[in-house]
C-alpha cells in the first residue's frame, strides 16, 4: 500500500525480534546468574527465608510483643484441643 504499512511491518519484525532477543539473553543471563550464585554462595534452607508480601504486611501491622501474645494464644488453643 504505502510507507505506513512498510513502517508497520518493520516495527513488527524489529519489535518481535528485539523482544525475543532481549528475553533470550535474559534467559541465559538468569541461568548464568543462578548457577554462579548457587555455586559460590550455596544456601542451605532458602525456603524458610522466602518472604512474601502478606508476611511483610503482618510484620508491619503487628508489633513483636503482640505476635508473642498471639502465638501463645494459638498454642494454648491447640493444646486444649488435644486434651
Amino acid at each position, binding site marked *: *500500500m*504505502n510507507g*505506513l*504499512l512498510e*513502517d*508497520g*511491518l*518493520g*516495527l*513488527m519484525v*524489529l*519489535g*518481535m525480534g*528485539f*523482544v*525475543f*532477543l*532481549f*528475553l*533470550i*539473553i*535474559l*534467559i541465559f*543471563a*538468569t*541461568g548464568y*546468574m*543462578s548457577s554462579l*550464585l*548457587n555455586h559460590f*554462595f550455596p*544456601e542451605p534452607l*532458602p*525456603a524458610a*527465608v*522466602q*518472604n*512474601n*508480601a502478606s508476611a*511483610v*504486611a503482618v*510484620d*508491619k501491622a503487628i508489633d513483636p510483643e503482640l505476635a508473642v501474645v498471639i502465638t501463645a494464644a494459638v498454642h494454648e488453643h491447640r493444646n486444649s484441643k488435644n486434651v
Partner: protein
Amino acid sequence: MESKLLNLYHDTGIYQLELGQFVMICVGLLLVYLAIKKGFEPLLLLPIGIGAVMVNIPGAGFMAAPVYDAVGHLTSPGGLQYYIYHGGIETGLFPLLIFMGVGAMTDFGPMLANPKTLLLGAAAQFGIFATVIGAVLLGASGIMDFTLADAAAIGIIGGADGPTAIFVASRLAPDLLGAIAVAAYSYMALVPLIQPPIMRALTSEKERAIKMVQLRVVTKKEKIIFPIVVILLAAMFLPSAAPLLGMFCFGNLMKECGVVDRLSDTAQNALINIVTIFLGLGVGSKLSSADFLNLETLGILGLGLVAFSIGTASGVVMAKIMNKYSVEDINPLIGAAGVSAVPMAARVANKVGLEANKQNFLLMHAMGPNVAGVIGSAVAAGVMLSYVGG
C-alpha cells in the same frame, strides 16, 4: 439581578450540556458500573469513570488551563484534572511510579525457577505487533485516521499491562490515551472471558491435563540480583525501555533486598494508592467527547480485543512448541499467561488446567510467563518508543 439569574442559568449544565458530553458522562458511569458491579479492574476503572464524568461537566472547568497575567501572577487557577494530567501523565511520572509499586509487589521466584518461561512472555507479545499491523492497515486504507505512532500505541493494549499502555500512549498518541487506557484495563478485566475459548481451541484435553514438575526453590540472592541484571540488560540493549524496566526493577529490588522494608511497604501501599487515584482521574480527563466519540475509538476497542486474542494464541502456540522440544513437560495453557494481566491470566491458566485434571495446579508455573510478559511488554514499548520516536 435578572441578568445575574440569567447568568446562573447559562452556567448550568442543563443549558450548556452538549450531546457528546452527555454521552461521555454515560460512558463514565458505565465504567463506574463495570468497576463496582462487574469488578472490572476497579482500582483504575472507578477513578477513570469518575474522571470521565467530571471532565465532561460543562462549565466545571476540571481541565481548565490556568491563566497568568503578564508579570506571571495567576489570575485564574486551572482545574484539578489539568494539573493531574499535565503534572503526572503527560510527564510519565505516574505510570513509572505505578510500575515501581507493581515491581515491589512482584515475585520473580517462579520465573527464576524456570527461566525458559521467559520465551512465553516473549511470544505473547506478538499480539502487540500483529495489532500494530492491523491498525496500520486501517490507517493505510483510509478507513481510520491512524499514524504509525497511533498504531504503535494501540498495539500496546495487547501487552495487557495498564501502566505500560498509558506510558506509551502518553508519549506516542496522547489524543488516544483515554480510549487506549480504557481498552487496556477493560480487556485485562475480561481475561477470564477472552482467554479460555482460545486456550481450549488450540489445545487438546490431553495437553491441558499435562502436569508440570514442581518448581525448584529460588534463593534470596537470586531474587536480589535478578532485578539488577534486568536493569543492566536494559541499559545495554534497549535504553528506551530503561524508564519502565528500571522503575519496575527498582521496586522489586526494594522488596527483595530486605533492608528497606519501610520504603518497599510505602511503594506498594500509600504511594501506589495515591498515584492510582491521580492516574485514574488523569486518564479520565482524556475521555472527552472530542477525543472519544469517533470511529477511531471503535477501532481501538476492536483492535485491542484482537491484540489480546492473538497474544493469548501465540503464547499457547509457543508453549506447545516448547513442550514438543523440551525434556520436561510444559502445559501449553501457561503460554496464555504470557500476555501479562498479572495475576489474572495466571489464574485463568490454573482454572482451565484444573478443568482438565483436578490435580493439575498450574498457578505457580503460570506466574513465570505472567511476569515475563510484563518484561516483554516493557521491551516492546521500548522498541516502539525508539522506532517511532527516533
